[in-house]
Each structure stands twice: as C-alpha cells, then as structure tokens.
C-alpha cells in the first residue's frame, strides 16, 4: 500500500519551543489513521504542516507525493480544523457553496450537506447552529472539495451523540470510497472502533504505532481486579502477571496477557477472593501506559 502522507525527520520549532522533534510518520492511502497524544504532543502542529500552513524547520513533508504548500496538492486535501472556522453570517448552504468554488471538481453542495447530515438546517445561519451542527458544517466544508485526503483535528469535541453518529457514518462512507483520513481525537473509544491504525505521539515524536489491537496488547492483554488477603509480593508471584498494584483494603489490580492461567492458578491454590473483575485492556489503558511519565514506567516492559 502506498503512503498518502510522509513526514520524514521533521522538526518544527517556534522560537525556543520545540513542537516536533524528528517526527517520522507515514499515513497509508485509503486508511483511517487516528493520531493520539496528550495536549501539547504536537498533533495540531503536524496537521498544520500536512496542510501546508507552515514549513518544517527541518525534514520533509510530503502529501500525495508533493509539497502541501503547492495549490495543486492542496486542492486534493480537505481540512477540518479544531476551531469551528465558519462564516457566521452565511447560511449553511451559502457557506458550503462558497467553499465549493475553491475546488476544480467539488461535490454538489447538497451532497456535502447530506454527508454532514445538515440537510435539515441548510437555510439556517451558521451563527445560529448548535455546537455539534457547527462542527458538522466544518466537516461539510472539509469534504465539499471532494478531497482524496482528509485531515481532521478533534472532530467530535463539542458534538452531541446525534452529531457524533452522523459524523462517524460519513467518515466510514468516505473510507469505504477509498479516501485517506487522518484524525486526532481525545475520545479513545471512538478511535478504537473506527481506526485502521493508531499513532500515539508525545513530546513531538511518535511513541507507538499499530492497529488498535496491537496497541491494546502492548498495554498488557487484560486487567484482573479482585479483593483478597494476598500481599503485593504474593500477587507478583502469580503466573503471567506483568504489573501488580494493591491498596490498603486489599483491592488488587493486575495486568496480564494470560488472565485464564492466572485465574486457574488462583482457584487451584484455594485463595479466597471476592469482587472479581476481568476486562480486556482498552486503547485508553494502552494510551495511559504509553504516555505516562517515565518514572511510573519503571516496572513496565510494555514499550515496544
């Protein structure tokens, strides 16, 4: 599969602040890639470079094989920025029609409105829309040029459940049509469900990169919680335990890749325990493990 976006050894500094540090990131064509990371990780800076809004301090940025600062590349990119950048005095349809004039082969404005599920409010002023509708208008502006690559920054922030549903339906339709989508989000369960691939950034560089399943398994396959009389040393001796924590009430919290073997052993040795809870590690667990400050990672071997 070819790469739609390639960032190679990219540095970006603003004065004395380093936003990106030797960032290497390839986004494969036709995939939905979720870019995750704590605030200040450099996600938005990376997207701005892919949009050609700025030039890297060092390294190469290439989108669809060209420099995104060139108009012939830009006309194949759609952008939905973090802030709801919409002209408040225009109606929804007027705004989308205006933007369609900037592209050589745009979608019909009504098509873009339908994709964003805005058909019902097409005649309403953008300034009078709800927060979620404003975000969907920003999405309609991003897709009306019929782009091959969509760069979406925090799409669902401020969206209600209905807007979110409409948004993900449209995104999966675009993905089915072969479009490349890169999005950042704080909602990890959404990324887990929709993304082909997850890239975790921290401090301006890539920390982890893989399918949601791969990242989950990096975090330790499962979380086993129960209450017993076992002390920490005994918990750590249980088979297959990667990490173990215990609080003063005897609540144990274990991470293991083999929860079945662990439970088998626990039953076998006849330890009385209660409040058993077994859950698969979520992407959120993986994310927290990956982006946790280094000091608390001392007993972890999960970083690939």
């Amino acid at each position, binding site marked *: 599969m070819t790469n739609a976006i390639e960032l190679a050894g990219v540095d970006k500094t603003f004065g004395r602040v380093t936003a990106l540090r030797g960032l290497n990131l390839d986004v494969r064509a036709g995939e939905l890639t979720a870019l995750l990371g704590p605030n200040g990780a450099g996600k938005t800076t990376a997207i701005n470079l892919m949009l050609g809004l700025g030039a890297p301090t060092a390294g190469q940025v290439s989108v669809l094989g060209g420099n995104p600062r060139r108009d012939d590349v830009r006309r194949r990119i759609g952008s939905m920025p973090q802030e709801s950048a919409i002209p408040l005095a225009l109606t929804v349809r007027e705004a989308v029609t*205006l933007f369609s004039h900037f592209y050589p082969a745009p979608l019909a404005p009504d098509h873009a409105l339908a994709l964003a599920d805005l058909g019902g409010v097409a005649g309403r002023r953008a300034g009078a829309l709800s927060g979620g509708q404003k975000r969907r208008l920003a999405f309609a502006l991003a897709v009306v040029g019929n782009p091959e690559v969509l760069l979406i920054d925090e799409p669902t922030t401020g969206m209600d459940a209905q807007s979110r549903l*409409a948004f993900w339906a449209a995104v999966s339709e675009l993905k089915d049509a072969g479009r490349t989508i890169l999005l950042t989000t704080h909602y990890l369960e959404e990324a887990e469900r929709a993304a082909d691939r997850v890239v975790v950034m921290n401090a301006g560089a890539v920390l982890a990169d893989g399918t949601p399943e791969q990242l989950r398994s990096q975090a330790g396959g499962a979380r086993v919680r129960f209450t017993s009389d076992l002390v920490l040393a005994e918990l750590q001796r249980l088979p297959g335990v990667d990490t173990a924590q215990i609080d003063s009430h005897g609540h144990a919290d274990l991470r293991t890749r083999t929860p079945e073997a662990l439970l088998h052993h626990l039953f076998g040795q006849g330890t009385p325990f209660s409040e058993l809870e077994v859950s698969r590690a979520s992407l959120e667990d993986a994310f927290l493990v990956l982006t946790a400050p280094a000091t608390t990672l001392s007993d972890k071997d999960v970083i690939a």
Partner: protein
Amino acid sequence: MTSPTAQTTAQTAARTAALPAPARSARRAPRLPALGALALAELRRMLRNPMFAVGTIGFPVIFFSLFGLGAVNEVTDQGFKVGPLILVNFGAYSLLSLAMFSFGSAVALERTGGWLRLLRASPMPTTLYFAGKLLAALAFSALSLGILYTFAHFVGGVTIPVGTALLLLIKLLLGMIPLTLLGLCIGFLVSPTAAQITANLVSVIMSFASGLFTPLDQMPAFVQKVAPFLPAYHLGAVARGTVVGQSSGEATHWLALAAFTVIFGALAAWGLRRDEAREQ
C-alpha cells in the same frame, strides 16, 4: 433538529452510491467565480449585520441631517454653495468608517476565529479573499454614497450634476484604497475586541481631525497642522475640489494618498505574515 435513525441510514445508503471519484485533473478552480462568491459572501455579511449598516449608512445620514442640513443653502467666502461640500465630507466619512469596520474589526474576527486560516489551507490564494473583500466594500460604499446623496437631494435640496457625481464616485472609491489598507493594519495588529473600539475611534477622530465634520479653519491650530498627515484629509480635499470644479492641487493630494497606500500596505503585509507565522 432531529432525524430518526432509519432516515439517517437511508440517507447513508443513498450517499454511498453517489460519491464521485476525486478528480485528478491538473486544472485549478476558475478564479473569477470564486472571487464573485467571496465578494457575494462579504456583501451578505455586511447587509445582514444591522449594526454595520447603521454605522456605515445610518450615521453619515444622521450626522448630515444634524450638522449639515441647516447650512446647505449657505455660501462660502469663495462663493461656493455649502450643501455639496458638506455632502461630500460626510460621504468621505462614510467610506472611512466602512473601511475601518469591514477591514478592521471584521478581519480581526475572521483571523482569530480561524476562518482566514481555513481559507489559507484551501487551494485559493489568500489575495482572492482580500480582493473579494475590497470588491464588496466598494459596492457597499457605492450603495452607501447613493443613499446619502438621495437623502441630501430630496430632504436638503442638494444637487450635484450627474457627470460630476460619477467622477466624484470614482475618485472617492479610488481614494478609499489606502483607508481599507489602514483598516487591514488594525485587523491584523489588534485583537478583535480592541479592533472594534479602534475602528470606532479612528473613524470618528480622524474625521474630525481631517475637517470632514467641521471645516478645518474652525479647528484649533494644532489640528490644522496634523491634518495633512491623515489620509482622510486628502480624500476630503480631493472630493471637495471635484465638487466645486477646482482641480488645482489635486495631484498633491493623490500623491499623499499613494504614499499612505504604500505605508499602510507594507504594514498590513507585515501583519499578515506575522499572523501566518503564528498560526503555523
């Protein structure tokens, strides 16, 4: 707005079939329709904001009726009728305030609200955004001047011959360009809240100090000294000279307006680049 899930699903199914393959043609979107769409959007923005129309059409008419109507039939020491002179002064004031609000406070909002950034990420050159704004401002100015003249004509009995009026319109709109650039400087260098106040202050204070509200010879001496350093003073002088048919000295005023165009243009360009660098 509610849409049942069944309906959403049906729409989704319909959309999938319709999504056309992205165009890989090398051609770019035609510039002229895009410029027209940008100018139209800008005009809509102006017409739909009541406060904008009040500031750029209402105030000049109100000021004219308060300060001008009583004196339209007087004659100056040089033997010129006062009516047309007052009228063009308030016309120049109208252009000044339009330039300050449309290019000052509006740009400040569009810049910080992300709209300008989104346009920058689109394949359209940013110059088209400014060109569309300028076109809309000129069209709106023509409308505003037309309303002011209609009011002065029917209520105050002020008449300017058609030929002179058209020449005046062209000169006023041409002379408005440095004012729009001054507006852009405010838009790029001042925060949105401050830009609103700055636009107000600049348009009122500069109008007074340029002799648009009161003849300069009735103003304090220091104001008379400062006036030549204000673009609105030269625009007013060009307009008054045209309406009384005296073009001597007009070249000097145009030269001054050209100099302001260069200075404000350079400052606005610097502000634009500073803004781009910050957004990156």
